[in-house]
């Protein structure tokens, strides 16, 4: 059975490394510091995107919105994770219900990915 793919988008290298360590046992993990890369891609799309809000360039909420609008990417599960106090509200306003508050417990990260991929 083909392994599922998770793309983690965050501008903090340490967070990307943590996510890779935690998720690569069960999934193919791709880490990106810029979200716009995924918007331009036509194939090799992930099954789930873990997305930070405050990113350099286009912010996470805008990327989530564009992913949801595009026919090819609209079925990808999106989880927003953020240290921003209004992160959950912003995600919800963009129609993203899956949210993980930073700092998170690693069990919570593994659980939310497993349940939604």
């Amino acid at each position, binding site marked *: 059975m083909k392994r599922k793919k998770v793309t983690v988008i965050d501008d903090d290298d*340490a*967070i990307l*490394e*943590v996510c890779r*360590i935690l998720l690569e046992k069960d999934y193919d993990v791709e880490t990106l510091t810029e979200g716009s890369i995924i918007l331009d891609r036509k194939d090799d799309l992930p099954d789930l995107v873990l997305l930070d809000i405050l990113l350099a360039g286009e912010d996470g909420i805008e990327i989530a919105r564009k992913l949801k609008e595009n026919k090819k990417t609209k079925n990808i599960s999106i989880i927003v994770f953020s*240290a921003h106090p209004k992160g959950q509200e912003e995600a919800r306003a963009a129609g993203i219900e899956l949210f993980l508050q930073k*700092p998170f417990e*690693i069990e919570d990260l593994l659980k939310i990915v497993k349940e939604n991929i």
Partner: protein
Amino acid sequence: MKTKNISDRAAFLIKQEEELKKLRKQSFLIFKNVSDGITVQNRKGIIFANQASLEFTKVSLNKSTKNFKYFNEKGISINWNNLPAGRVLNEKVEVQGLYKVVNKKTGEEFWLNIKSMPIFDQDKKLIEVITISRNITSHMLEDEMKNNFLRLIAHELRTPITSIKAFSQILERMNNSSKDKKTMKYFQKMDIQISKLSDLIDTLLNVTKLKQKIPFKDKWFSFDLFVKKDISEIQKGLNKHKLILIGKTSKKFFGDKEKISQILKNMINNAVKYSPRGKKVIITLSGENNSLKVAVRDFGIGISPRHHKKIFKQFYRIYGKKENLFPGVGIGLSVSKEIADRYGAKMWVKSREGKGSIFFLSLPVRKSKKL
């Protein structure tokens, strides 16, 4: 003799009149030049307005009211009748509040602290309303900037904590199979300290959240179970103090668990912090018809009665021979009190120097649900 009396009385009256004229002139100059807006009105309209009120307040002048939109502190649009002066005319009691005024034409915004007071005649009939308005726009903007700064700092601190916490948990997992108990113990201690740091940042964030009146995530939960779980979590981070739980409320509470937990943690952590020689902290739960009560008792340094009310104010710290040895910035109790206020709850303290303290929290229960 009679003539002398009359001339004395005349001289006295002339002197009195001069005094009155001087007083009137003084009052006029004060009213004219004071930077607060002052207006006097009766039911027919404004009968006096000083220069400052004409320049920035305008809200009390009938002709100008149509040019402005008014909002209360929560940002809800209100009409002129609901401003303090209008309310005093109806309710006949002193009214004070913060209001945002927006000029409809220019879009200019300013904040006013408005206080209106009734004046009654001998028959206790309301005859006039005096309104004093202070322009606090710069203060409000500074406050907003401060809150935005705190929010930004908190966000920036949370990001590295996220990876530190995760790496520490990853290492703990990797070493889980090893029999090195010491290493495991240190990992756990590291995790507890990271959680403490994270809680501190949450407290900082809550100061700004509470000011912005962000809604709480209220849900029903069993109060006794919640307290028991919280106490066991806090106990893990304590070396010397034993937390003893007595009694129960047997009630469900409708509230934001995270916020109530913050109050509880603050009460217990303070009890531990201010009883460095103490060995125990007693948490007593009790339930009444429409409320539930938490009492946290320590056997520490205690607090002099003159500080009892002030310690719930933001950034209030007690400096003394004994107390100045304790770290902190003085926001824990004020945040707890603000959360408590949002639930219509009460917080107070019974304490004497050298005799320990008992901090109380009394929460009203919306519907008395027995478990």
